[in-house]
């Protein structure tokens, strides 16, 4: 009987997704509808879609596990997700992006940059970066969704991969941006409700209040494993030792890298172009913040609290209960929550994967179809129906690439490629796109040469830092070892633990300022950009 209800919930979920995808298809008429939802989306749908795209399964399961291992210091990431990822993103970036995007009739991030700087090279270069780097990142998200599907249905990896890909492909291809955003909104609501139930369930089981549980968690700081204490862990309710290895990883990679890197992610930026007024963006700020504090805030908190539960019941901390931090959250929920909730939670993880993945497929397709094909093929550019068909084909190609990567890597392959490409994509978004994007919005003296040079510096410096300096990726790649006989070029100090974004972003920012000032046009005509 329990299985019947479980399958019924899952079937209702997929039927709802199919219906919303169909609704998106019915309401899509032309390229603008397909790429930015006609620019007239509802603010609630827009902000829920933004939040759901922002939060992938790895944010829930992966970072929830990180919180269980390293403690509540990770809540700084939640705060930055809200403050930088929503408040600053919507108000400082979103409002001018929407206005300038509407003036330039931009339907994608690459088109926005290309049109703003009046440069086909910048448009194609940005689109190429998205199309080359994103499939691997999408494959990582796809794998997360497939593992979750395996858990729900008890079917093998390849069949799960096929079913999951077909479901996401159907509604992205058919419904375009409207299909993606409608389904995102539903998935965001599921995630929101699920986290609400989870936090009540956890505290009910613990039999403690919020402050009491935090105090109890603080009192077991001496149970921190020795190997973690050596790298700076001081307990789950304390920040790591200032300047320690753990502090560097937490601050630079997780907090600064993910917190700041989100500002120039194409799949998020394009959502600002889906509404037709600043008023709608303003309304979205509160919805975005509430969504993030409930989803991300709760899962990080619950992750850390799991140590208290396992210590009270089993005499062990969370990290000692399972062999990998990614397994802590599912294991903890399986232990503490009723069976029906485990199914709902799996749908929550599936929703998080699907919403992020659909946005990635759509962004890759926009880059390939609208920006690369559309720029190179002048004949078809003005034929809206033909361009929509081309972009639909590009969705299919993007999905096939990610599907093949995921299939080749397989279930048990622990290849570091996915982790490296995810870091690469995040790093490039921040270092290659953010300076050009910010200057387009706020600095009138920026030139196309400055923007182009900054993008190149951002890409090259990120790649070099990942290959030769940052220990995690450099060791896995082994290129530095092959060439120089050492895993990283700078072995002394904490340099090897500092995220590449901390060097690549300042470098590309300096480049855009210096090159722009050196290439100021004499007649000033070039700099008459449509500032908001």
């Amino acid at each position, binding site marked *: 009987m329990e299985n019947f209800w479980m399958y019924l919930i899952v079937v209702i979920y997929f039927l709802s997704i199919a219906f919303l995808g169909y609704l998106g298809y019915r309401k899509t008429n032309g390229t603008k509808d397909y790429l930015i939802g006609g620019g007239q989306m509802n603010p609630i749908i827009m902000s829920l879609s933004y939040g759901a795209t922002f939060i992938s399964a790895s944010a829930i399961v992966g970072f929830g596990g990180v919180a269980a291992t390293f403690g509540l210091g990770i809540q700084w990431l939640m705060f930055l997700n809200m403050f930088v990822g929503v408040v600053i993103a919507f108000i400082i970036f979103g409002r001018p992006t929407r206005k300038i995007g509407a003036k330039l009739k931009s339907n994608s991030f690459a088109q926005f940059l290309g049109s703003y700087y009046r440069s086909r090279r910048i448009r194609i270069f940005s689109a190429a970066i998205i199309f080359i780097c994103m499939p691997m990142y999408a494959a990582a998200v796809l794998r997360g969704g497939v593992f979750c599907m395996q858990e729900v249905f008890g079917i093998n990896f390849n069949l799960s991969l096929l079913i999951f890909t077909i479901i996401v492909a159907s509604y992205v291809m058919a419904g375009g941006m409207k299909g993606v955003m409608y389904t995102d909104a539903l998935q965001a609501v599921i995630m929101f409700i699920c986290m609400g139930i989870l936090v009540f369930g956890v505290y009910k089981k613990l039999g403690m209040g919020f402050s009491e549980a935090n105090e109890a968690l603080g009192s077991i700081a001496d149970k921190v494993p020795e190997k973690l204490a050596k790298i700076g862990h001081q307990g789950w309710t304390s920040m790591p030792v200032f300047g320690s290895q753990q502090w560097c990883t937490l601050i630079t990679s997780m907090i600064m890298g993910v917190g700041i890197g989100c500002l120039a992610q194409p799949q998020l930026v394009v959502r600002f172009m889906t509404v037709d007024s600043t008023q709608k963006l303003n*309304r979205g700020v509160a919805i975005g913040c509430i969504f993030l504090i409930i989803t991300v805030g709760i899962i990080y908190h619950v992750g850390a609290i799991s140590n208290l539960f396992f210590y009270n019941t089993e005499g062990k901390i969370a990290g000692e209960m399972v062999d990998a931090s990614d397994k802590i959250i599912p294991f903890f929920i399986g232990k503490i929550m009723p069976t029906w909730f485990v199914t709902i939670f799996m749908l929550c993880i599936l929703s998080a994967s699907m919403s992020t993945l659909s946005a990635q497929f759509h962004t890759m397709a926009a880059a390939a179809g609208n920006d690369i094909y559309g720029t190179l093929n002048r004949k078809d550019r003005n034929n809206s129906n033909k361009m929509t068909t081309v972009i639909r084909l590009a969705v299919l190609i993007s999905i096939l690439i990610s599907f093949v990567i995921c299939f080749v890597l397989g279930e048990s392959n622990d290849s570091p490629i996915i982790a490296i490409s995810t870091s690469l994509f995040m790093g490039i978004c921040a270092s290659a796109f953010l300076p050009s994007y910010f200057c387009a919005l706020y600095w009138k003296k920026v030139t196309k040469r400055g923007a182009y040079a900054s993008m190149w510096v951002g890409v090259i410096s990120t790649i070099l830092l990942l290959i030769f300096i940052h220990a995690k990726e450099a060791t896995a790649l082994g290129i530095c070892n092959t060439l120089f006989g050492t895993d990283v070029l700078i072995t002394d100090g904490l340099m090897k633990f500092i995220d590449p974004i901390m060097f690549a972003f300042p470098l590309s920012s300096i480049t855009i300022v210096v090159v722009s000032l050196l290439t100021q046009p004499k007649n000033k005509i070039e700099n008459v950009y449509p500032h908001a």
Partner: protein
Amino acid sequence: MFGISDPSIWIVYLLSILCVIGSVIFGIITWNKTDEDENNTNKQEDPNKKIKE
């Protein structure tokens, strides 16, 4: 505060709560507020609409 002794942890909870409260207040204040240039654009568009009608 909140049962957490380390200020660098409890302060993030406080900041997050303030951030949500601030965003709600911002939403209420700006709920019906439109930008001046958006108003101007709409005003400029109105006569054209009348002519077409």
